């Protein structure tokens, strides 16, 4: 447990998941998940495809429903109460593998939509905030274009800015670079690194092991719906404990 205390960035709890189980029909996708995330932690979740890592982070903002166990996000218990779900979702930002920008709205409108309608921010203020975050992801000049006119990397950075405009306390990333060309991966990772350096609480499903080494406090390895191993990145990569982790690492780092 000495290690566990070292991992902590602060004592404040961001997310606690206790004994969570989820089934798709009769298929048991998530088994006995226990996870505590402290504010400011950067967690990378990896594992073979079908191991339930995306499902896990999608449970945190209730895009997927869990059947057993308890999830507490930022002090709010996730239940079937729609008010709680909407509250959690407005505090938790999410970036998707396929960006999911709204193609019928301009970049600026994409970013101001939720602040205006959910937070009831005045339009002018929302636009100023949006421009601030677009500058941060280095695409303010594209503000009046439509998502279809941007490259994949630019779209993903807009998606990050769109989430940030809601001033979330936690960010979830669901394989943010998997749908990108190699040369665009770096620009997205740079944005994420910058975000991590500012102390954002992040949970990131990714196979970018360089990113994990550079910014993560903790790496979680999942297989067959369970958390198999979690550790600090150095230890995790140099000295993996379980056989499954060793096999996985040898496969993705081997080439």
């Amino acid at each position, binding site marked *: 447990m000495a290690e566990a205390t070292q991992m902590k960035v602060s004592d404040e709890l961001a997310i606690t998941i206790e004994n969570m189980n989820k089934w798709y029909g009769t298929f048991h996708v998530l088994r006995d998940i226990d996870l505590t995330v402290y504010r400011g932690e950067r967690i990378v979740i990896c594992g073979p495809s079908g191991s339930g890592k995306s499902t896990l982070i999608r449970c945190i903002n209730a895009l997927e429903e869990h059947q057993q166990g308890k999830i507490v996000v930022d002090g709010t218990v996730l239940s079937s109460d*729609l008010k709680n779900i909407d509250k959690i979702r407005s505090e938790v930002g999410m970036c*998707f593998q*396929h960006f*999911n*920008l709204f193609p*019928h709205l301009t970049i600026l409108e994409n970013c101001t*939509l939720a602040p205006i309608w959910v937070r009831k921010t005045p339009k002018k203020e929302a636009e100023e905030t949006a421009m601030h975050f677009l500058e941060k992801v280095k695409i303010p000049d594209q503000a009046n274009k439509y998502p279809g*006119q941007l490259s994949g990397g630019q779209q993903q950075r807009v998606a990050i800015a769109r989430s940030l405009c809601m001033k979330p306390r936690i960010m979830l990333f669901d394989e943010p670079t998997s749908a990108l060309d190699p040369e665009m991966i770096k620009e997205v990772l740079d944005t994420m690194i910058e975000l991590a350096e500012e102390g954002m609480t992040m949970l990131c499903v990714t196979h970018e092991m360089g990113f994990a080494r550079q910014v993560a406090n903790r790496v979680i390895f999942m297989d067959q719906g369970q958390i198999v191993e979690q550790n600090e990145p150095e230890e995790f990569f140099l000295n993996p404990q379980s056989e499954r982790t060793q096999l996985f690492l040898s496969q993705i780092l081997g080439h």
Partner: protein
Amino acid sequence: MTNNHDRSIAFVRTEDVPAAPPPPNAAGPTKWLKDNLFATIPNSILTIVALLVIYLILQGTLPWLLNGVWVSPSLSVCRDILDGATGACFAVLTERWNQLLFGFQYPADLYWRPGLAFILLFFAAAPVLFFDLPRKLLIFTALYPFIAFYLIWGGSILTPIVALVGVVAGAAVYQRYVKGSFALGFFAGIVAALIVWNLGGLIIPDEEITEGAMRSVASRDLGGFMLNMMLGVTCVSLSVPLGIALALGRQSSMPLIKYICVIFIEFIRGVPLITLLFVASVMLSYFFPPEATVDLFLRVVIMITMFSAAYIAEVIRGGLAALPKGQYEAGDSLGLDYAQSMRLIILPQALKISIPGIVNVAVGLFKDTTLVSVISMFDLVGMIRGPILASTDWQGIYWELFGFAALLFFVVCYGISQYSQWLERRLATDHR
């Protein structure tokens, strides 16, 4: 090969090659003819055959059109004027234009009222159809149904005013309570409107106004192309929102709502419109208490609206299904509630995809309004088949009348289809 190495490959152009006019076979009408009409032997044959067909059609119709008689009191006089020559008797149109447009019972001195309503329709429709116009113009669009009702039916001005106040009260109550929950706002709004309408009914005078410029005109006196336009405009504008509601209801996770919508849509789609119209004209009165009289026009509007709403719902369902699941998830993950994500994210995209289908239904609906002629409403086709063809003056004249009807419908439907194509181009933002 070695020779190449002997020569220098360096080259510098010292003067420009002057621009020259193209040879005759590279541009101009000759090239266009060769490329488009006489490119190959089969092409040339097709071109010649097509030209022949066009010639034959024009040869048959042009004398008939150009030699038309425009002034004549009856068909027999018209035939005398023509004296055996080929020619159309367009005189029936100039003689009976008022009946074709307004029906045979609408008071002639009041034609300005539906005429004005028709002109105002363009002003009311413009801000809806062309959304670059200032949003404030929508206020007139919202008032238009009440103005048009007053202009066409006349009577006491209190009737449309009470109706308007009821709608405003309902909307205000809805606004007040919708923040609590949508259902509460919705039903509270309906109750408020009903209360206002019932109270307002007390102040509307019972006796009809029979004198003056704004005297009452009964629904049975409406007719001609005016009736088609009224049915078309009312039913299209009512069936689009109803169709959206049905499409969303069909996707609902609440089984009761879902199955009500599914049964409604499947039932309506399985029944011919003509059957529904007969139900409206004959059978619907059995379902109302004996003293209640629901206007025939209103009954027909309800039936046509339900009919086209079911089709529009299916078209929109296709649009909803075409959206990637990620759009719903992105809306959810930003904390938008159901109504917001539908209104701001899902429907704008789904409706855009559905435009061609919706317009298809709208054009079909507009043409189907002529079916009311079989339940003895005198719309344009009803007027032609009934009063005009039955009159001794114009018995036996078909081409001119039905050609005119076709022309009127074509103008409107072609306009709708051109608008929808403009709209699709205007909304194309995804650059796929």
